[in-house]
């Protein structure tokens, strides 16, 4: 069962990473990036590395996501 879990997690990671790079709209890419960071934190947790998982959850999924959303708002306001 843990093998199924790991394979599903790896597939979702690859899919969300590739989709995040290939999608054409900026806001979709940001949401996919947040999802990617979260899945990455889960992957670190599965690899029994809670410290890296903590950093990934805090920086990758949380702060970078919020900063990217903020930057996206600024870019859109400037364009309008």
């Amino acid at each position, binding site marked *: *069962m*843990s093998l*199924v*879990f790991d394979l*599903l*997690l790896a597939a*979702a990671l690859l*899919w*969300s990473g590739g*989709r995040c790079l290939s*999608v054409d709209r900026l*806001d*979709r890419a*940001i*949401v*996919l990036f*947040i*999802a990617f960071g*979260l899945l990455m*934190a*889960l992957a670190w*947790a*599965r690899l*029994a590395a*809670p*410290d890296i*998982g*903590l950093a990934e*959850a*805090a920086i990758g*999924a*949380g*702060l970078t*996501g*919020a*900063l990217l*959303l*903020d930057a*996206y*708002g*600024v870019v*859109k*306001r400037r364009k*309008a």
Partner: protein
Amino acid sequence: MNGFDLAIALFLLGNLIVALLVAARGPTSADRMLMALLFGSTGTGILVLLAQAMHIPALVDVALVLALLAAIGGVAFAKRAWQGDGHD
């Protein structure tokens, strides 16, 4: 009980992946952001279950941080990024 915890975690992961596949083509930007918030809460649940199943208590701290920072992302979206209707 470990196998059972892992089974529930697997079920939640399946949930999350279904939401991810649909979120990629969601209709408005608000819906996609709500998906990101759902990922945060489901991820918290999965991490807590993994902490119990793998006997790593430190994973509970990761779950705690994830629950907090998903909220920060949501507030940043509502306050800064979301302007105009569903076309952007």
